[in-house]
């Protein structure tokens, strides 16, 4: 993965697009590769927290893509579960290496996403939200009733990724995954496809009328999202070495959505800021862990009331406030 950023760096001198990519990704890369490991060196617990946050951000970046086409997707937990089980079964039953399982989990999730998404994406608004929520629950029940390796449908003793042993290794892997995901979504959002997505969010009929194959684009967005969910689930399964049908429930699907929303739906960085913000905040608030979920709810309502466009919209609001104050 380092090669791709290096390549971007060398071409960057000539092509303005690549230079923009470098500017977009460099601060995040420095933060993830240098600042975080430096501050948290020798603190495996906090490195684990950051690893979790990075992988969860990767999953919520996927949800952001479906938000970009104007669909509220509450199915990311289902695809994380699917990806997790794909890796769990491939690595324990067939002995495949994690580095093969990870892309395969993404592929399986994308295929299932395409198959399910093709018909379901005809639904809109609350219908799509409700049916994706049902999908999360259906996926849990599916694994509960079909996987018989262990009582309760779980898979245990999933091998750790080869070559990854210390918490720092885990963290660097998660950070790399996140950077690649960020670069991919950032590139997607800025490309022609990104503009097609935005036009679909505003008015699907209008987009259709100017010759955009809306059905194909929205399935692509959903499959892209599902693949990211599947890879996030695969990474978690391997890091935690077990997976159960209840590992991802409706609550997790809602959380993925919540992270995007909290960061701001208009920014590619939104899901990353939202996830890290919430995860770190609640680690710091561990002493009042009893009220954690209560605060989640209250926070969500407060943001809804006062920052309906997410935390990242704060600078522009403050800027406007400052200008009008003068």
């Amino acid at each position, binding site marked *: 993965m380092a090669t791709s950023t290096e390549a971007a760096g060398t071409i960057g001198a000539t092509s303005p697009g690549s230079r923009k990519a470098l500017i977009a990704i460099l601060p995040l890369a420095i933060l993830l590769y240098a600042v975080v490991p430096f501050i948290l060196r020798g603190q495996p617990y906090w490195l684990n927290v950051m690893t979790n946050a990075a992988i969860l951000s990767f999953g919520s970046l996927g949800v952001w893509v479906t938000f970009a086409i104007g669909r*509220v997707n509450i199915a990311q937990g289902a695809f994380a579960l699917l990806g997790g089980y794909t890796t769990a079964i491939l690595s324990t039953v067939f002995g495949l290496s994690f580095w093969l399982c990870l892309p395969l989990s993404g592929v399986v999730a994308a295929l299932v996403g395409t198959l399910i998404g093709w018909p379901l994406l005809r*639904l809109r608004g609350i219908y799509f939200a409700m*049916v994706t929520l049902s999908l999360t629950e*259906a996926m849990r029940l599916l694994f509960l*009733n079909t996987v018989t390796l262990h009582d309760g449908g779980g898979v245990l003793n999933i091998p750790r990724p080869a070559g990854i042993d210390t918490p720092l290794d885990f963290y660097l892997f998660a950070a790399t995954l996140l950077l690649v995901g960020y670069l991919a979504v950032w590139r997607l959002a800025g490309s022609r496809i990104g503009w097609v997505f935005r036009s679909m969010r505003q008015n699907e009929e209008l987009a259709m009328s100017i010759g955009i194959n809306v059905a194909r684009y929205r399935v692509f967005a959903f499959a892209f999202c599902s693949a990211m969910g599947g890879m996030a689930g695969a990474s978690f399964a391997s890091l935690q070495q077990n997976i159960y049908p209840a590992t991802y429930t409706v609550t997790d699907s809602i959380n993925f959505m919540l992270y995007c929303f909290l960061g701001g739906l208009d920014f590619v960085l939104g899901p990353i800021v939202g996830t890290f913000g919430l995860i770190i905040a609640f680690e710091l608030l561990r002493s009042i862990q009893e009220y954690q979920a209560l605060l989640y709810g209250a926070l969500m309502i407060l943001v809804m009331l006062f920052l309906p466009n997410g935390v990242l919209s704060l600078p522009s609001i403050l800027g406007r406030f400052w200008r009008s104050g003068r």
Partner: protein
Amino acid sequence: MEQILVNGAILSANYALIALGITLIFGIMNVLNFAHGQMFMIGGLIVYTVCVVFKLPYAVGLLSAAVAVGLIGMLLERTLFQRVMRISSREENTMLLAVGTALLLENIALYVFGEKQRGIPPMVSGVYRLGSAFLPANRLLVFAISLALIAAVLLFVNFTRQGRAMRALAQDRTATMLMGVDVNRISMLGFGLGAALAGIAGGLLISVSGVNAGIGTAISTKAFIMIMIGGAGVIGGALLGAVALGFAEAIGYALFPGSVTYLLIFTALILFLLIRPQGIMGKPWG
């Protein structure tokens, strides 16, 4: 077989209360109430507190559940939903707000009532026989109360001044306002009524199967299934969805082990939505 029909009918009547409530809120406010299951749960736990902890009669418990949950609904509508509906730029926002209130209510309930599964002793004892089916008197009472309430809500919505205003609001907000209806008041009333119905449904079901603080999401999911089958925002559709889900559940639990029933219901639902995405009685993207 008769037992399955009896169970299905009782479940359907109770689910109809849930579906009616969420449909009223959706129709009038265009808000998908994610907190509906949590309101159901709070209703059940209030009945438990009044009847078991304070040892008051069941009727008092049910009434206080209806009033308390109705007031919670009205309060949420007035303080949160009205503001967000006014300032929001995306239509998802009210839905996300509802998710937030669901989280909040669930955790407040966890804190206030604890996480134990709660039930109350049956209000009436005795068992009737209907052909080969057993029909406990308690369930018959629940069934009768549900049916009476459904009838009352239908009469209210169809034949009273406020009910007519609610239906008008569901059709066209601006036109209703122009006719001199106090839109904010009617919205609050509708939200409160929908919430109260959820509370009553919880208060009724706690005497049959018990309620715990974590049951909300499962109930909301059931409510969503019902309105997806029937069509969102259509009262007839809500009742139809409730009957479909109630009988599907009763038949499934009789034939399949445990969680297979809902797996089949979800699969059937997705296949059904392929053919009719707007539900049986829903308007296409209306």
